[in-house]
C-alpha cells in the first residue's frame, strides 16, 4: 500500500555532459506521450487531411527518433531504470522499467517506426489524393489515430513492469491494430480478417493473463496487489508444476500474437488487408513485441530451468519455420506471402530462444547467450528486412493497384529504385551474405553445431534435426524470394490493363532506402551490434558473447573462438566487389559490342507475356514435393468438343491452410452446435421456465 497517489521517480541519472539530458526511460516515456497526444489531437485536423498526414506522421517520426536514441543508450549502458506512475489501481500503480532487454526492443521498434512513419507520409497521400474509383478517396483520420496508439501500445508493453500495465498496453496494441486492420471496413474480407485477428489476440491475452495470475498468486499471494509487480514475480520461487503451467500459458499466449503455427491463422488474413504501412509494423515489430513477452516471462520472470520447456519452444519454432515458408511459397498475393514469411521468421527466432532455454537449463551460459544473441539479431534483422519488403510491396501496390503477383512483372523498368531496395530485402531475407539475414542464421547454426552432447538422448536427436530443418527453411526462403523478385520486378508486365506505373514518391523511396541501408549495415558490422547488446545476455542468461566475438577486431566475427568459426562480412563484401569490378573491367578489353534482340522463342513466334513463368508455375515443383503437408486441390478441365484438342483449359488451384480446416473450423462448428443445444433449453414456454426454477430449487435443497 506504499505508493498511494504519489509518483516515485527513481530514475537513474543519465550521464549527461553538462546539460540536463532526460534519462532513457524519461525519453521513451516522452516519446510515448507524444504518440498519445498525437493520437488525441489527430481528430482535430479531420477536415484537413493532407496536413493531418504531414503533422501526425512527422510527429511519429520525431517521437520514434527520441525513443530509438533512448533505447540505444539503455542497451549500451545496460543500466536499469524504474519509474512509478500515479495511475492504475491505487495499490497497484503503473510500474515502468527500462533495462537492456526492453531498451533493445524499444530501439528495434522505434527504428522501424521511424522508417515507416516517413514512408506513411508518402503512402497515405495516395489515399486522399487518389481519384475515386480505384481505391476511392477516404479519410485517414482513424488510421492516424490508431497508428499512434498502436505504436504507443507497443512501446508501453516493452516498458511495463507489472502485470496490469502490461496487459493494458498489450491489449491497447491489439485493439489499435485491430482498427488498423479493419481500416477498409466496407471490405468484407477486411472485417473477417480483423475479427479472426482480434479473437485470437484476445485468447492469447487471456492466456497471458492467466499466466500472470499463477505467478502473481504464487509470488505475492492475493492478500494484496503486490504480487502483480514483475519485481515480485522475479524474486519469487515458483514450484515446478506451477512454473510449467505459467510458462506454457504465457508461451501460448504470446505465440498466438507472434503467429506461431498452429496459432498463426490470423496473420495471413490480417496482414494483406491492412494498409501496408501497418502491415510493415505488424510484421516487423508487433510480432517481436510478442517475442519480447516470451523473453521477459521465460528468462526474466520465471527463470526457466527445464530443458523440456525449451524443447517445446524449439519444436514449435521449427514447425512454424517450415510450414510458414512452405505456405509462403504457395501464395500469389504478395502481402500474404510476406505474412507467411513472417511466420517462418518468427519460427526461426523461436528456435533461437528454445536453444537458449535448453542451454540455460544445462548451465551452458556461453552457448545460451550465443543462441540468445542469434535470436535478438534475427529479431532486428527481420524487423528491418520485413519492414523493407512490406514497404516495397506497398510501393508496388501503390503504383499498380494490384496485390496479385500473377498480374505484375517487369516493374524493375518502371520503378528502378524500388526494385533495388526490394532486391536488398530479398537478399537479406534469403540469408545471403553480406546482408543481415545471413549473420543471424550463421550465429544460429553456430549454436546448433557447437552444442555438445546433452545428457538427454531425445535432445541429441532433436538438435541435428533442428539444424536440418533450419537449413531447409533457409533454402526454401531463398527460393521463395527469387520467385517474388523474379515475378514482380523481372520479366514483362503481366497485367490485364496497361496502367501507367511510376516510381513512387521521395518519402517512400527514402524510407525504403534507410531500411535497405540498415540491412546492409547490420550485415557488415555484426561485431558492433553484438557488442551493443552485450548487456542483454548478461542480464538474462548470465553469459556474454561480445568478448570472444570481437576478439579479432571489428572486422572478424568469432562468436566462440577463432578456430571454431569466423566470418567477416566486410571482407566477403569487398572481395566480391573487387572480383566483380575486376571482371567487369577486364572483360571490356576485347571491346565486343552489345545489341538487343528478341528473346529465344524456340521457333514459336507468338510469345506473349502470359507465357512467362508466373508465381504459381514457379512454385509447382514444390507443390508436388510438399503437397502432402498442404491441402492442395488442383484441377484442369478441358473444354471443347474433342478432349484431345481442347479449345481452352480451365486450371483451378486451391491451396488451403490445413490447420484452419483441421483445428479452427471444427471448433467454430462445435460452438454453433453447442449454441443450438443451449438454444433448445429456451423453449419459450413459461411452464418449462418455471420447471427449471423448480428443479433448481429441489436440486439445491437436496444437495445443499
Amino acid at each position, binding site marked *: 500500500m506504499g505508493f498511494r497517489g504519489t509518483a516515485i521517480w527513481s530514475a537513474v541519472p543519465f550521464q549527461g555532459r553538462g546539460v540536463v539530458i532526460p534519462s532513457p526511460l524519461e525519453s521513451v516515456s516522452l516519446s510515448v506521450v507524444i504518440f498519445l497526444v498525437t493520437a488525441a489531437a489527430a481528430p482535430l485536423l479531420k477536415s484537413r487531411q493532407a496536413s493531418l498526414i504531414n503533422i501526425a506522421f512527422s510527429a511519429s517520426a520525431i517521437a520514434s527518433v527520441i525513443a530509438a536514441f533512448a533505447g540505444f543508450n539503455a542497451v549500451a549502458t545496460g543500466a536499469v531504470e524504474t519509474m512509478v506512475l500515479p495511475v492504475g489501481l*491505487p495499490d497497484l500503480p503503473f510500474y515502468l522499467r527500462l533495462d537492456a532487454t526492453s531498451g533493445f526492443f524499444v530501439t528495434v521498434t522505434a527504428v522501424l517506426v521511424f522508417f515507416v512513419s516517413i514512408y506513411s507520409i508518402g503512402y497515405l497521400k495516395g489515399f486522399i489524393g487518389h481519384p475515386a474509383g480505384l481505391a476511392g478517396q477516404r479519410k485517414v483520420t482513424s488510421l492516424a489515430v490508431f497508428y499512434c496508439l498502436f505504436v504507443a501500445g507497443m512501446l508501453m508493453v516493452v516498458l511495463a513492469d507489472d502485470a496490469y500495465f502490461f496487459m493494458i498496453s498489450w491489449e491497447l496494441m*491489439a485493439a489499435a491494430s485491430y482498427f488498423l486492420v479493419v481500416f477498409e471496413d466496407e471490405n468484407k474480407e477486411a472485417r473477417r480478417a480483423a475479427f479472426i485477428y*482480434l479473437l485470437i489476440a484476445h*485468447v492469447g491475452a487471456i492466456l497471458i493473463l492467466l499466466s500472470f495470475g499463477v505467478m502473481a498468486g504464487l509470488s505475492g499471494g492475493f492478500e494484496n496487489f503486490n504480487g502483480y509487480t514483475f519485481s515480485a514475480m522475479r524474486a519469487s520461487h515458483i514450484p515446478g508444476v506451477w512454473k510449467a503451467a505459467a510458462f506454457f500459458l504465457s508461451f501460448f499466449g504470446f505465440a498466438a500474437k507472434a503467429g506461431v503455427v498452429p496459432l498463426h491463422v490470423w496473420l495471413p488474413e490480417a496482414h494483406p488487408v491492412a494498409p501496408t504501412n501497418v502491415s510493415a509494423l505488424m510484421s516487423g515489430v508487433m510480432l517481436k513485441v510478442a517475442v519480447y513477452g516470451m523473453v521477459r516471462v521465460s528468462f526474466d520472470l520465471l527463470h526457466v530451468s527445464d530443458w523440456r520447456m525449451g524443447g517445446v519452444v524449439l519444436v514449435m519454432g521449427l514447425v512454424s519455420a517450415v510450414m510458414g515458408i512452405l505456405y509462403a511459397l504457395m501464395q500469389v498475393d504478395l502481402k500474404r506471402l510476406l505474412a507467411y514469411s513472417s511466420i517462418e521468421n518468427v519460427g526461426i527466432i523461436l528456435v533461437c530462444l528454445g536453444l537458449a532455454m535448453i542451454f540455460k537449463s544445462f548451465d551452458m551460459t556461453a552457448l545460451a547467450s550465443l543462441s540468445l544473441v542469434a535470436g535478438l539479431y534475427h529479431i532486428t534483422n527481420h524487423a528491418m528486412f520485413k519492414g523493407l519488403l512490406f514497404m516495397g510491396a506497398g510501393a508496388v501496390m501503390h503504383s499498380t493497384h494490384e496485390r496479385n503477383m500473377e498480374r505484375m512483372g517487369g516493374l524493375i523498368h518502371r520503378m528502378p529504385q524500388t526494385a533495388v531496395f526490394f532486391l536488398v530485402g530479398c537478399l537479406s531475407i534469403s540469408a545471403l551474405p553480406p546482408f543481415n539475414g545471413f549473420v543471424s542464421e550463421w550465429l544460429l547454426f553456430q549454436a546448433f553445431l557447437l552444442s555438445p552432447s546433452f545428457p538427454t538422448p531425445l535432445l541429441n536427436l532433436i538438435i541435428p534435426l533442428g539444424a536440418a530443418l533450419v537449413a531447409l527453411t533457409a533454402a526454401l526462403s531463398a527460393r521463395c524470394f527469387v520467385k517474388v523478385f523474379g515475378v514482380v520486378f523481372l520479366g514483362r508486365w503481366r497485367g490485364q490493363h496497361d496502367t501507367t506505373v511510376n516510381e513512387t514518391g521521395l518519402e517512400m523511396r527514402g524510407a525504403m532506402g534507410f531500411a535497405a541501408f540498415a540491412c546492409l549495415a547490420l550485415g557488415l558490422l555484426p561485431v558492433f551490434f553484438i557488442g551493443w547488446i552485450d548487456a542483454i545476455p548478461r542480464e538474462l542468461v548470465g553469459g556474454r558473447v561480445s568478448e570472444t566475438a570481437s576478439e579479432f577486431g571489428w572486422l572478424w566475427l568469432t562468436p566462440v573462438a577463432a578456430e571454431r568459426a569466423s566470418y567477416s562480412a566486410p571482407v566477403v563484401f569487398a572481395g566480391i566487389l573487387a572480383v566483380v569490378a575486376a571482371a567487369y573491367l577486364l572483360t571490356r578489353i576485347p571491346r565486343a559490342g552489345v545489341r538487343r534482340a528478341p528473346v529465344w522463342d524456340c521457333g514459336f513466334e507468338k510469345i506473349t507475356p502470359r507465357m512467362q513463368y508466373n508465381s504459381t508455375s514457379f512454385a509447382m515443383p514444390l507443390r508436388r514435393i510438399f503437397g502432402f503437408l498442404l491441402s492442395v486441390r488442383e484441377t484442369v478441365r478441358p473444354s471443347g468438343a474433342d478432349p484431345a484438342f481442347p479449345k481452352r483449359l480451365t486450371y483451378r488451384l486451391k491451396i488451403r491452410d490445413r490447420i484452419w480446416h483441421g483445428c479452427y473450423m471444427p471448433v467454430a462448428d462445435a*460452438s454453433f452446435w453447442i449454441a443450438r443445444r443451449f438454444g433448445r433449453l429456451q423453449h419459450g414456454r413459461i411452464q418449462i421456465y418455471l420447471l427449471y426454477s423448480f428443479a433448481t430449487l429441489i436440486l439445491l435443497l437436496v444437495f445443499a
Partner: protein
Amino acid sequence: MTIQILLGVNIIGAAVLAFLGDRRLAPEVNILCSAATFISSVFLATGVYVNGPMLSGGGFFFVDSFNVYLAVLTAFVSMTTAIFSRRYMRYERRHGRIGRAGMRFYHAMFQLFIFAMLLALLTNNVGVLWIAMELATLSTVLLVSLYRTPSAVEAAWKYFILCGVGIAQALFGTVLLYFAAERVVGEGTGALLWTNLNAVAGRLEPTVLSLAFVFFMVGYGTKVGLVPLHNWLPDAHSEGPTPISAVLSGLLLNVALYALVRCKVLVDGATGSHKAGYIMMVFGLVSIIVPAFSLLRQKDIKRLFAYSSIEHMGIATFAFGLGGPVATFGALLHMLVHSLTKSAIFFTAGHASQMHSTQDMSDIKGLIRGNPLVGWGLMFGVMAIAGMPPFGVFTSEFLILTAAMKDAPFLTPFFLLGVVVAFAALFRKVMPMVFGAVPGNQRPLRPSHIPVIVHMVLVLILGLYLPLFLSQWFHMAVDLLQ
C-alpha cells in the same frame, strides 16, 4: 436526513410526473428529479466517506461502503438514463410507438422504479429489502409491455410470473432467516436488520440458514438472471423501451446481486463453511458459459446485450463466490463498470435500432459512417464489455481471472471458455453493424450524446485510474464481505 430526501425526491417525482403526463416539460422534470437524487446521493456518499458507515431513520436505513457506491451508481445511471430517454422517448412518441398514457406511465414508473432500487439498497431491513425488490419488479412489469405488441406483452408476462415466483422464494428465505434470527436477537423488527444480524451471524442456526440461502439463491438469483433462472431476462430486455432495458441491466441486476451477497455473508458467518460460495461459483460459471453460447445465435440487438448482461452477472457471482480480497474487489468493481458500460451500450443500441426502425441486427449496418457517435459508441462499448483494456471491465476481469487462477485453477478453463465465446460472439455480431457503407434503410437521427460519452469516459477512466475513495470503499466492502 439525506436518505429521506434521496428517497423522497423519487416518490414526489413519481407523483408529479404522473400528474404532468405527456406535457411538454415532463422529460425535463424527470431529468431534474433524477439529478436531484444523484446530488443527494453524492452528499450521502461524502458523508459516508468522511464519517464512515452510518445508521439513519432509527436504524431503518443503513449505509456502508458496500451499498453506498451502488446507491450513487444507481442514482447516476438513472440520471443519465433520464437524459437519454428525453430524446429517445420523444422520438418514440413522435413515431407513434407509444401514446399519451404511455408517456405518463413511463415517467411515473421510472421514478418509482428508481425509488424501489434505492430503497432496496439503503434499507437495513431484510424484509423491506424484499418488498423493495418486489416493487422494482412490479413497477417495471408494465413498462416492459409499454408498446403493447404481442411479444412485449408476452415478455412482460414472463417477467412478471418468473420474477414473482422467484421473489416469493426469496420471501420464504427471509422467513427462514427471521426464524433463525428471532431466537438469537429476539422478536420484532430488530431480528430483520442487517446490522443486528451481522453482529450475531456466528450464532445463527447453520441448518436453517443454509436452507434459507437456497431460497435466497433461487429467489434473488432469478432477479440477477442466473442460469437456469434467467429466462425472463432476454425477453424483458429486448421488448421493453430502451431506457428500461438500460436500467434493468445496469441497475436492477446489481441490486439483486447486492441482496444475494448480503445474504451470503450472513450464511457464511453462520455456517462457517464456504458452501454458499461454492453454490455461487457453480451458478456463476453456468451463467457465464450458457449465455456466451447463446450470444452466438442472437438476431435481436437488445437481446444480444441482455445475454451479455447475464454473462457478466455470472462473472460477478462467480467472483463473489470465489471470495478472497482480490476476487471480491474485482466483483465489486465489475458491478460498477458493467452497469456503466452496459447502459451505455443500450443507449447506443437503442439509437441504432431507431435509426433503422428495427432491432434485427441483420438490417443494421454502417453505423460509424451513418452516425459516428452511435457507431463508435457501440464499438467501444462492446470492446469494453468484452473485456478489452483500457476499459474498466478489463480491470475487474483481470483481478477475477488472476485470483481464480490461484484459488480455483481447474475452473478457469470453463470461465475462459465462456469469456472467449462471448467475445467472439459479440464481435461477430457487432462488426457488421458498425462497419461498412450506410444502407438505404438508415435514417438520420440526433442521438443523445451526453450519456454515452459520459459513461464511456468513466469506464475508460476506471480502467486506467481507480480513484482513491472508490478503492477505499472497495477495500472496506471487501473486509465486510470476508
